[in-house]
Protein backbone atom coordinates (compact mmCIF):
# COMPACT_ATOMS: atom_id res chain seq x y z
CA UNK A 1 0.00 0.00 0.00
CA UNK A 2 1.12 3.51 -0.78
CA UNK A 3 2.66 5.30 2.23
CA UNK A 4 0.31 8.30 1.90
CA UNK A 5 -2.73 6.04 1.62
CA UNK A 6 -1.63 4.21 4.74
CA UNK A 7 -1.24 7.50 6.60
CA UNK A 8 -4.64 8.65 5.36
CA UNK A 9 -6.26 5.38 6.43
CA UNK A 10 -4.60 5.58 9.85
CA UNK A 11 -5.69 9.20 10.27
CA UNK A 12 -9.33 8.59 9.28
CA UNK A 13 -9.67 5.40 11.33
CA UNK A 14 -7.99 7.03 14.35
CA UNK A 15 -10.33 10.03 14.38
CA UNK A 16 -13.36 7.82 13.73
CA UNK A 17 -12.45 5.43 16.57
CA UNK A 18 -11.99 8.39 18.89
CA UNK A 19 -15.42 9.78 17.99
CA UNK A 20 -17.09 6.37 18.42
CA UNK A 21 -15.58 5.72 21.86
CA UNK A 22 -16.36 9.29 22.93
CA UNK A 23 -19.98 8.67 21.90
CA UNK A 24 -20.11 5.37 23.84
CA UNK A 25 -18.64 7.07 26.89
CA UNK A 26 -21.19 9.87 26.61
CA UNK A 27 -24.02 7.33 26.36
CA UNK A 28 -22.78 5.49 29.48
CA UNK A 29 -22.47 8.65 31.51
CA UNK A 30 -25.79 9.95 30.25
CA UNK A 31 -27.41 6.82 31.72
CA UNK A 32 -25.55 7.34 34.97
CA UNK A 33 -26.49 11.02 35.09
CA UNK A 34 -30.14 10.23 34.38
CA UNK A 35 -30.33 7.78 37.27
CA UNK A 36 -28.33 10.00 39.64
CA UNK A 37 -29.35 13.47 38.60
CA UNK A 38 -28.86 14.74 42.16
CA UNK A 39 -25.14 13.89 42.12
CA UNK A 40 -22.88 16.69 40.96
CA UNK A 41 -20.05 14.28 40.07
CA UNK A 42 -22.34 12.39 37.66
CA UNK A 43 -23.36 15.67 36.05
CA UNK A 44 -19.74 16.76 35.82
CA UNK A 45 -18.58 13.49 34.20
CA UNK A 46 -21.46 13.69 31.74
CA UNK A 47 -20.39 17.21 30.79
CA UNK A 48 -16.81 16.01 30.36
CA UNK A 49 -18.01 13.20 28.10
CA UNK A 50 -20.01 15.69 26.00
CA UNK A 51 -16.93 17.89 25.59
CA UNK A 52 -14.83 14.86 24.57
CA UNK A 53 -17.51 13.86 22.08
CA UNK A 54 -17.68 17.37 20.60
CA UNK A 55 -13.92 17.38 20.31
CA UNK A 56 -14.00 13.95 18.65
CA UNK A 57 -16.68 15.09 16.19
CA UNK A 58 -14.90 18.32 15.26
CA UNK A 59 -11.65 16.42 14.84
CA UNK A 60 -13.26 13.67 12.76
CA UNK A 61 -15.11 16.11 10.52
CA UNK A 62 -11.96 18.20 9.98
CA UNK A 63 -9.69 15.25 9.21
CA UNK A 64 -12.13 13.21 7.14
CA UNK A 65 -13.35 16.24 5.16
CA UNK A 66 -9.77 17.21 4.46
CA UNK A 67 -8.93 13.77 3.06
CA UNK A 68 -12.13 13.59 1.00
CA UNK A 69 -11.63 17.04 -0.53
CA UNK A 70 -7.94 16.49 -1.23
CA UNK A 71 -8.72 13.07 -2.71
CA UNK A 72 -11.39 14.68 -4.92
CA UNK A 73 -8.82 17.24 -6.02
CA UNK A 74 -10.74 20.08 -4.31
CA UNK A 75 -7.77 21.53 -2.51
CA UNK A 76 -8.99 25.06 -3.05
CA UNK A 77 -12.32 24.34 -1.35
CA UNK A 78 -10.55 22.75 1.61
CA UNK A 79 -8.34 25.80 1.84
CA UNK A 80 -11.46 27.96 2.26
CA UNK A 81 -13.20 25.58 4.70
CA UNK A 82 -10.20 24.74 6.84
CA UNK A 83 -10.11 27.99 8.89
CA UNK A 84 -13.67 27.39 10.09
CA UNK A 85 -13.04 23.72 10.77
CA UNK A 86 -9.85 24.67 12.61
CA UNK A 87 -11.65 27.36 14.59
CA UNK A 88 -14.33 24.90 15.68
CA UNK A 89 -11.64 22.40 16.67
CA UNK A 90 -9.76 24.95 18.76
CA UNK A 91 -13.00 26.06 20.41
CA UNK A 92 -13.90 22.50 21.35
CA UNK A 93 -10.41 22.08 22.82
CA UNK A 94 -10.79 25.23 24.94
CA UNK A 95 -14.29 24.11 25.96
CA UNK A 96 -12.95 20.68 26.94
CA UNK A 97 -10.14 22.28 28.94
CA UNK A 98 -12.63 24.56 30.73
CA UNK A 99 -14.89 21.62 31.60
CA UNK A 100 -11.91 19.58 32.80
CA UNK A 101 -10.70 22.42 35.00
CA UNK A 102 -14.16 22.63 36.56
CA UNK A 103 -13.43 19.28 38.28
CA UNK A 104 -11.79 21.09 41.18
CA UNK A 105 -14.89 23.19 41.72
CA UNK A 106 -17.15 20.15 41.36
CA UNK A 107 -15.16 18.33 44.05
CA UNK A 108 -15.49 21.30 46.39
CA UNK A 109 -19.25 21.47 45.85
CA UNK A 110 -19.48 17.71 46.32
CA UNK A 111 -17.53 17.82 49.60
CA UNK A 112 -19.67 20.67 50.87
CA UNK A 113 -22.82 18.78 49.97
CA UNK A 114 -21.51 15.70 51.78
CA UNK A 115 -20.76 17.74 54.89
CA UNK A 116 -24.25 19.25 54.85
CA UNK A 117 -25.71 15.80 54.26
CA UNK A 118 -23.84 14.48 57.30
CA UNK A 119 -25.11 17.33 59.44
CA UNK A 120 -28.61 16.61 58.25
CA UNK A 121 -28.12 12.93 58.95
CA UNK A 122 -26.90 13.66 62.49
CA UNK A 123 -29.90 15.89 63.08
CA UNK A 124 -32.22 13.20 61.73
CA UNK A 125 -30.61 10.65 64.03
CA UNK A 126 -31.15 12.94 66.99
CA UNK A 127 -34.76 13.52 65.97
CA UNK A 128 -35.30 9.80 65.58
CA UNK A 129 -33.84 9.16 69.01
CA UNK A 130 -36.10 11.80 70.52
CA UNK A 131 -39.04 10.37 68.62
CA UNK A 132 -38.31 6.91 69.98
CA UNK A 133 -38.21 8.30 73.49
CA UNK A 134 -41.47 10.17 72.93
CA UNK A 135 -43.08 7.01 71.54
CA UNK A 136 -41.88 5.10 74.55
CA UNK A 137 -43.33 7.68 76.93
CA UNK A 138 -46.57 7.84 74.97
CA UNK A 139 -46.75 4.03 74.93
CA UNK A 140 -46.25 3.82 78.67
CA UNK A 141 -48.88 6.48 79.28
CA UNK A 142 -51.34 4.79 76.92
CA UNK A 143 -50.76 1.45 78.64
CA UNK A 144 -51.38 3.05 82.04
CA UNK A 145 -54.58 4.69 80.78
CA UNK A 146 -55.83 1.44 79.27
CA UNK A 147 -55.14 -0.43 82.49
CA UNK A 148 -56.94 2.25 84.55
CA UNK A 149 -59.91 2.21 82.15
CA UNK A 150 -60.00 -1.57 82.27
CA UNK A 151 -59.87 -1.58 86.06
CA UNK A 152 -62.64 1.03 86.22
CA UNK A 153 -64.86 -0.82 83.71
CA UNK A 154 -64.42 -4.17 85.42
CA UNK A 155 -64.71 -2.90 89.00
CA UNK A 156 -68.48 -2.23 88.92
CA UNK A 157 -69.70 -5.60 87.56
CA UNK A 158 -67.19 -7.49 89.68
CA UNK A 159 -68.31 -5.61 92.83
CA UNK A 160 -71.97 -6.23 92.04
CA UNK A 161 -71.36 -9.93 91.24
CA UNK A 162 -69.24 -10.30 94.40
CA UNK A 163 -71.91 -8.64 96.58
CA UNK A 164 -74.71 -10.79 95.13
CA UNK A 165 -72.74 -14.01 95.48
CA UNK A 166 -71.78 -13.13 99.09
CA UNK A 167 -75.45 -12.52 99.96
CA UNK A 168 -76.40 -15.85 98.36
CA UNK A 169 -73.67 -17.65 100.27
CA UNK A 170 -74.76 -16.19 103.64
CA UNK A 171 -78.38 -17.38 103.08
CA UNK A 172 -79.86 -13.88 103.47
CA UNK A 173 -81.24 -13.85 99.98
CA UNK A 174 -84.72 -15.17 100.81
CA UNK A 175 -86.69 -17.81 98.90
CA UNK A 176 -85.76 -19.60 95.65
CA UNK A 177 -88.28 -17.49 93.75
CA UNK A 178 -86.75 -14.24 94.97
CA UNK A 179 -83.31 -15.56 93.94
CA UNK A 180 -84.64 -16.39 90.50
CA UNK A 181 -86.41 -13.06 90.05
CA UNK A 182 -83.81 -10.68 91.60
CA UNK A 183 -80.33 -12.12 91.87
CA UNK A 184 -80.04 -14.26 88.73
CA UNK A 185 -81.01 -11.44 86.29
CA UNK A 186 -78.60 -9.08 88.09
CA UNK A 187 -75.79 -11.63 87.89
CA UNK A 188 -76.51 -12.25 84.20
CA UNK A 189 -76.60 -8.51 83.53
CA UNK A 190 -73.19 -7.98 85.15
CA UNK A 191 -71.76 -11.04 83.37
CA UNK A 192 -73.03 -9.57 80.07
CA UNK A 193 -71.24 -6.27 80.89
CA UNK A 194 -68.01 -8.20 81.47
CA UNK A 195 -68.47 -10.07 78.17
CA UNK A 196 -69.06 -6.75 76.43
CA UNK A 197 -65.81 -5.34 77.85
CA UNK A 198 -63.88 -8.41 76.64
CA UNK A 199 -65.51 -8.11 73.20
CA UNK A 200 -64.51 -4.45 72.91
CA UNK A 201 -60.91 -5.34 73.72
CA UNK A 202 -60.91 -8.05 71.06
CA UNK A 203 -62.25 -5.58 68.50
CA UNK A 204 -59.59 -3.09 69.48
CA UNK A 205 -56.85 -5.67 68.91
CA UNK A 206 -58.30 -6.92 65.61
CA UNK A 207 -58.26 -3.31 64.29
CA UNK A 208 -54.47 -3.38 64.47
CA UNK A 209 -54.35 -5.80 61.51
CA UNK A 210 -55.72 -2.99 59.31
CA UNK A 211 -52.36 -1.22 59.59
CA UNK A 212 -50.74 -4.12 57.70
CA UNK A 213 -50.10 -3.30 54.07
CA UNK A 214 -48.40 -4.95 51.11
CA UNK A 215 -44.72 -4.02 51.36
CA UNK A 216 -41.53 -4.65 49.40
CA UNK A 217 -38.84 -6.00 51.71
CA UNK A 218 -36.14 -4.70 49.33
CA UNK A 219 -37.43 -1.16 49.67
CA UNK A 220 -37.59 -1.33 53.48
CA UNK A 221 -34.11 -2.83 53.75
CA UNK A 222 -32.67 -0.29 51.29
CA UNK A 223 -34.08 2.60 53.34
CA UNK A 224 -32.67 1.14 56.55
CA UNK A 225 -29.32 0.55 54.87
CA UNK A 226 -29.13 4.13 53.60
CA UNK A 227 -30.04 5.38 57.03
CA UNK A 228 -27.31 3.42 58.78
CA UNK A 229 -24.48 3.26 56.23
CA UNK A 230 -23.15 6.66 57.28
CA UNK A 231 -22.77 5.49 60.89
CA UNK A 232 -20.99 2.32 59.78
CA UNK A 233 -18.63 4.16 57.43
CA UNK A 234 -17.75 6.69 60.11
CA UNK A 235 -16.64 3.78 62.26
CA UNK A 236 -14.58 2.35 59.39
CA UNK A 237 -16.85 -0.67 58.89
CA UNK A 238 -17.48 -1.91 55.35
CA UNK A 239 -21.22 -2.23 54.88
CA UNK A 240 -22.62 -3.95 51.80
CA UNK A 241 -26.12 -4.40 50.48
CA UNK A 242 -27.16 -7.29 48.29
CA UNK A 243 -30.80 -7.04 47.32
CA UNK A 244 -32.81 -9.74 45.60
CA UNK A 245 -33.33 -8.80 41.95
CA UNK A 246 -37.10 -9.33 42.09
CA UNK A 247 -39.46 -7.44 44.45
CA UNK A 248 -40.08 -9.28 47.73
CA UNK A 249 -43.70 -8.56 48.56
CA UNK A 250 -45.31 -9.42 51.87
CA UNK A 251 -47.75 -7.92 54.34
CA UNK A 252 -46.61 -5.92 57.31
CA UNK A 253 -46.37 -2.71 59.27
CA UNK A 254 -43.78 -0.56 57.53
CA UNK A 255 -42.74 1.79 60.35
CA UNK A 256 -42.39 -0.91 63.01
CA UNK A 257 -40.43 -3.18 60.67
CA UNK A 258 -38.11 -0.35 59.67
CA UNK A 259 -37.49 0.40 63.32
CA UNK A 260 -36.69 -3.25 64.00
CA UNK A 261 -34.33 -3.70 61.03
CA UNK A 262 -32.53 -0.45 61.82
CA UNK A 263 -32.09 -1.68 65.36
CA UNK A 264 -30.53 -4.93 64.14
CA UNK A 265 -28.14 -3.07 61.84
CA UNK A 266 -27.24 -0.71 64.68
CA UNK A 267 -26.51 -3.75 66.89
CA UNK A 268 -24.18 -5.13 64.22
CA UNK A 269 -22.43 -1.74 63.90
CA UNK A 270 -21.94 -1.52 67.65
CA UNK A 271 -20.52 -5.04 67.77
CA UNK A 272 -18.08 -4.55 64.90
CA UNK A 273 -14.67 -2.92 65.05
CA UNK A 274 -13.03 -0.86 62.27
CA UNK A 275 -12.15 -3.07 59.27
CA UNK A 276 -14.98 -5.48 60.07
CA UNK A 277 -17.74 -5.91 57.52
CA UNK A 278 -21.52 -6.09 57.57
CA UNK A 279 -23.45 -7.79 54.78
CA UNK A 280 -27.16 -7.27 54.38
CA UNK A 281 -28.99 -9.54 52.00
CA UNK A 282 -32.61 -10.08 50.98
CA UNK A 283 -33.87 -13.21 49.24
CA UNK A 284 -36.85 -15.46 48.70
CA UNK A 285 -37.43 -18.20 51.23
CA UNK A 286 -39.86 -21.09 50.58
CA UNK A 287 -43.24 -19.40 50.40
CA UNK A 288 -41.91 -16.21 51.86
CA UNK A 289 -39.19 -13.61 51.93
CA UNK A 290 -36.13 -13.29 54.11
CA UNK A 291 -33.44 -10.89 55.23
CA UNK A 292 -30.02 -11.79 56.56
CA UNK A 293 -27.75 -9.41 58.46
CA UNK A 294 -24.26 -10.87 58.86
CA UNK A 295 -21.28 -9.29 60.50
CA UNK A 296 -17.69 -10.27 61.11
CA UNK A 297 -17.78 -9.01 64.69
CA UNK A 298 -16.71 -10.94 67.78
CA UNK A 299 -19.83 -13.14 67.80
CA UNK A 300 -22.03 -14.15 70.73
CA UNK A 301 -21.61 -16.95 73.22
CA UNK A 302 -24.17 -19.78 73.27
CA UNK A 303 -25.32 -18.81 76.75
CA UNK A 304 -26.16 -15.27 75.61
CA UNK A 305 -28.00 -16.54 72.54
CA UNK A 306 -30.17 -18.79 74.70
CA UNK A 307 -31.37 -15.81 76.73
CA UNK A 308 -31.25 -13.19 74.03
CA UNK A 309 -35.01 -12.90 73.40
CA UNK A 310 -36.03 -12.98 77.05
CA UNK A 311 -38.13 -10.01 78.09
CA UNK A 312 -36.52 -9.54 81.45
CA UNK A 313 -33.10 -8.85 79.98
CA UNK A 314 -32.42 -5.37 78.79
CA UNK A 315 -29.48 -6.45 76.70
CA UNK A 316 -28.55 -6.17 73.06
CA UNK A 317 -27.68 -9.21 71.00
CA UNK A 318 -24.12 -9.09 72.24
CA UNK A 319 -25.10 -9.29 75.85
CA UNK A 320 -24.43 -5.66 76.69
CA UNK A 321 -26.73 -3.73 78.98
CA UNK A 322 -28.80 -1.20 77.10
CA UNK A 323 -30.20 2.04 78.48
CA UNK A 324 -33.58 1.57 76.80
CA UNK A 325 -36.04 -1.27 76.84
CA UNK A 326 -36.45 -1.40 73.06
CA UNK A 327 -34.44 -4.44 72.02
CA UNK A 328 -34.46 -7.97 70.70
CA UNK A 329 -37.50 -9.15 72.72
CA UNK A 330 -39.52 -6.37 71.10
CA UNK A 331 -38.14 -7.25 67.65
CA UNK A 332 -39.07 -10.90 68.15
CA UNK A 333 -42.57 -9.81 69.14
CA UNK A 334 -42.83 -7.66 66.00
CA UNK A 335 -41.61 -10.48 63.74
CA UNK A 336 -44.02 -12.97 65.31
CA UNK A 337 -46.92 -10.55 64.83
CA UNK A 338 -46.05 -10.71 61.14
CA UNK A 339 -46.21 -14.54 61.26
CA UNK A 340 -42.45 -14.51 60.74
CA UNK A 341 -39.49 -16.09 62.46
CA UNK A 342 -36.16 -14.76 63.66
CA UNK A 343 -33.04 -16.80 64.34
CA UNK A 344 -29.47 -15.98 65.29
CA UNK A 345 -26.48 -17.98 64.19
CA UNK A 346 -23.30 -17.01 65.98
CA UNK A 347 -20.30 -18.14 67.89
CA UNK A 348 -17.29 -16.45 69.45
CA UNK A 349 -14.84 -15.24 66.78
CA UNK A 350 -16.82 -16.16 63.70
CA UNK A 351 -19.35 -13.35 63.49
CA UNK A 352 -23.10 -13.27 63.74
CA UNK A 353 -25.90 -13.81 61.27
CA UNK A 354 -29.45 -12.73 62.04
CA UNK A 355 -32.10 -14.30 59.79
CA UNK A 356 -35.65 -13.02 59.59
CA UNK A 357 -38.28 -14.73 57.49
CA UNK A 358 -41.78 -13.53 56.65
CA UNK A 359 -44.53 -15.45 54.86
CA UNK A 360 -45.58 -13.89 51.55
CA UNK A 361 -49.30 -14.29 52.21
CA UNK A 362 -50.91 -13.43 55.47
CA UNK A 363 -53.34 -16.26 56.15
CA UNK A 364 -56.89 -15.49 57.23
CA UNK A 365 -56.82 -14.41 60.88
CA UNK A 366 -53.08 -14.75 60.63
CA UNK A 367 -52.55 -12.03 63.13
CA UNK A 368 -54.57 -13.81 65.77
CA UNK A 369 -53.03 -17.14 64.84
CA UNK A 370 -49.62 -15.59 65.30
CA UNK A 371 -50.63 -14.18 68.63
CA UNK A 372 -51.86 -17.56 69.84
Amino acid at each position, binding site marked *: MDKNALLMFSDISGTAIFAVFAFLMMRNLSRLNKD*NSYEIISAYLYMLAISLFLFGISRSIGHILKHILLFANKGELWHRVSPFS*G*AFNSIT*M*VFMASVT*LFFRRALKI*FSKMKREQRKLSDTSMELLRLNEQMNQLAGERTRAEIILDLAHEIRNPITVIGGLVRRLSTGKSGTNSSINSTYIPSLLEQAARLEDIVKRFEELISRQTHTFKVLDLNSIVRDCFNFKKETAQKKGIAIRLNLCKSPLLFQGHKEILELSIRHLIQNAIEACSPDDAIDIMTKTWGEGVAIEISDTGPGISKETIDNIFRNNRETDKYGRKRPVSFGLPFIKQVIEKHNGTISIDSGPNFGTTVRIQFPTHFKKNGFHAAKK
Partner: protein
Amino acid sequence: MILVKFLGLYIIFSFIAPSCVYAIQEHLGIEGLIAHELAHILLLFAMCDFAYRVLRAHLFDKKEKRCFLSGAVLFALWNIWAFVAHLLHPANIINIKFKWLIPLITSDHILLVPSIICFYFASNALVKNRLDNDPRLMYDRDKD
Protein backbone atom coordinates in the same frame (compact mmCIF):
# COMPACT_ATOMS: atom_id res chain seq x y z
CA MET B 1 -16.22 33.97 35.08
CA ILE B 2 -13.15 35.36 33.34
CA LEU B 3 -12.69 32.00 31.61
CA VAL B 4 -16.32 32.00 30.47
CA LYS B 5 -16.03 35.53 29.08
CA PHE B 6 -12.80 34.60 27.36
CA LEU B 7 -14.42 31.53 25.84
CA GLY B 8 -17.39 33.60 24.64
CA LEU B 9 -15.20 36.17 22.93
CA TYR B 10 -13.05 33.39 21.50
CA ILE B 11 -16.10 31.71 19.93
CA ILE B 12 -17.49 34.94 18.49
CA PHE B 13 -14.20 36.11 16.95
CA SER B 14 -13.28 32.63 15.75
CA PHE B 15 -16.36 32.46 13.56
CA ILE B 16 -16.36 36.07 12.41
CA ALA B 17 -12.70 36.23 11.49
CA PRO B 18 -10.75 33.04 12.14
CA SER B 19 -7.58 34.34 10.54
CA CYS B 20 -7.52 37.43 12.76
CA VAL B 21 -7.61 35.36 15.93
CA TYR B 22 -5.17 32.79 14.65
CA ALA B 23 -7.60 29.91 15.04
CA ILE B 24 -7.07 27.64 12.12
CA GLN B 25 -7.01 23.92 12.65
CA GLU B 26 -5.22 22.99 9.44
CA HIS B 27 -2.26 25.12 10.44
CA LEU B 28 -1.15 25.40 6.83
CA GLY B 29 0.02 28.86 7.67
CA ILE B 30 1.62 30.26 10.78
CA GLU B 31 -1.52 32.39 11.46
CA GLY B 32 -3.59 29.49 12.94
CA LEU B 33 -0.88 28.01 15.00
CA ILE B 34 -0.81 30.36 17.99
CA ALA B 35 -4.44 29.94 19.06
CA HIS B 36 -4.28 26.20 18.51
CA GLU B 37 -1.06 25.80 20.46
CA LEU B 38 -2.51 27.89 23.28
CA ALA B 39 -5.51 25.56 23.35
CA HIS B 40 -3.13 22.59 23.58
CA ILE B 41 -1.29 24.16 26.52
CA LEU B 42 -4.57 24.87 28.31
CA LEU B 43 -5.79 21.33 27.67
CA LEU B 44 -2.47 19.87 28.86
CA PHE B 45 -2.74 21.85 32.10
CA ALA B 46 -6.40 20.84 32.53
CA MET B 47 -5.66 17.15 32.01
CA CYS B 48 -2.74 17.21 34.47
CA ASP B 49 -5.00 18.91 37.01
CA PHE B 50 -7.73 16.31 36.37
CA ALA B 51 -5.26 13.43 36.80
CA TYR B 52 -3.95 14.92 40.06
CA ARG B 53 -7.43 15.38 41.49
CA VAL B 54 -8.57 11.91 40.44
CA LEU B 55 -5.53 10.54 42.24
CA ARG B 56 -6.24 12.52 45.40
CA ALA B 57 -10.04 12.26 45.67
CA HIS B 58 -11.65 9.24 47.29
CA LEU B 59 -14.37 9.12 44.70
CA PHE B 60 -13.57 6.12 42.60
CA ASP B 61 -12.66 2.49 43.16
CA LYS B 62 -9.34 1.04 42.03
CA LYS B 63 -10.36 0.19 38.47
CA GLU B 64 -12.23 3.44 37.85
CA LYS B 65 -9.32 5.45 39.21
CA ARG B 66 -6.77 3.52 37.12
CA CYS B 67 -8.78 4.04 33.92
CA PHE B 68 -9.46 7.75 34.51
CA LEU B 69 -5.85 8.32 35.44
CA SER B 70 -4.48 6.46 32.39
CA GLY B 71 -6.90 8.33 30.12
CA ALA B 72 -5.92 11.72 31.52
CA VAL B 73 -2.17 10.99 31.41
CA LEU B 74 -2.37 9.71 27.82
CA PHE B 75 -4.43 12.74 26.85
CA ALA B 76 -1.86 15.04 28.45
CA LEU B 77 0.95 13.23 26.60
CA TRP B 78 -1.02 13.55 23.37
CA ASN B 79 -1.19 17.29 23.94
CA ILE B 80 2.61 17.47 24.23
CA TRP B 81 2.96 15.31 21.13
CA ALA B 82 0.47 17.42 19.15
CA PHE B 83 2.07 20.66 20.38
CA VAL B 84 5.50 19.55 19.16
CA ALA B 85 4.02 18.07 15.98
CA HIS B 86 2.37 21.36 15.04
CA LEU B 87 5.68 23.15 15.44
CA LEU B 88 7.49 20.56 13.33
CA HIS B 89 4.77 20.28 10.68
CA PRO B 90 6.11 20.88 7.13
CA ALA B 91 3.28 23.36 6.58
CA ASN B 92 5.19 25.68 8.88
CA ILE B 93 7.88 26.91 6.55
CA ILE B 94 10.50 27.48 9.20
CA ASN B 95 10.48 23.78 10.04
CA ILE B 96 10.49 22.27 6.58
CA LYS B 97 13.75 20.51 7.36
CA PHE B 98 11.78 18.12 9.60
CA LYS B 99 9.75 16.74 6.66
CA TRP B 100 11.05 13.23 7.27
CA LEU B 101 9.16 13.28 10.57
CA ILE B 102 5.70 13.49 8.92
CA PRO B 103 4.74 9.79 9.35
CA LEU B 104 5.64 9.97 13.02
CA ILE B 105 4.02 13.27 13.93
CA THR B 106 0.79 12.42 12.13
CA SER B 107 0.49 9.22 14.17
CA ASP B 108 -0.69 11.02 17.29
CA HIS B 109 -3.66 8.61 17.39
CA ILE B 110 -1.28 6.17 19.06
CA LEU B 111 -1.89 8.14 22.26
CA LEU B 112 -5.28 9.67 21.64
CA VAL B 113 -7.19 6.46 20.84
CA PRO B 114 -5.94 4.54 23.92
CA SER B 115 -6.75 7.61 25.98
CA ILE B 116 -10.42 7.69 24.95
CA ILE B 117 -10.61 3.90 25.34
CA CYS B 118 -9.38 4.31 28.93
CA PHE B 119 -12.02 6.97 29.57
CA TYR B 120 -14.63 4.67 28.05
CA PHE B 121 -13.57 1.79 30.32
CA ALA B 122 -13.73 4.14 33.30
CA SER B 123 -17.29 5.12 32.37
CA ASN B 124 -18.18 1.44 31.94
CA ALA B 125 -16.81 0.58 35.37
CA LEU B 126 -18.69 3.53 36.89
CA VAL B 127 -21.98 2.43 35.38
CA LYS B 128 -21.42 -1.18 36.38
CA ASN B 129 -20.48 -0.35 39.96
CA ARG B 130 -23.09 2.30 40.55
CA LEU B 131 -26.15 1.20 38.63
CA ASP B 132 -25.87 -2.55 39.16
CA ASN B 133 -25.90 -1.86 42.88
CA ASP B 134 -28.14 0.62 44.57
CA PRO B 135 -28.12 3.88 42.58
CA ARG B 136 -28.31 5.80 45.83
CA LEU B 137 -24.86 4.54 46.81
CA MET B 138 -23.12 6.81 44.36
CA TYR B 139 -19.75 8.12 45.35
CA ASP B 140 -20.00 7.04 48.97
CA ARG B 141 -16.28 6.41 49.08
CA ASP B 142 -15.64 10.07 49.69
CA LYS B 143 -13.91 10.52 53.03
CA ASP B 144 -13.39 14.28 52.90
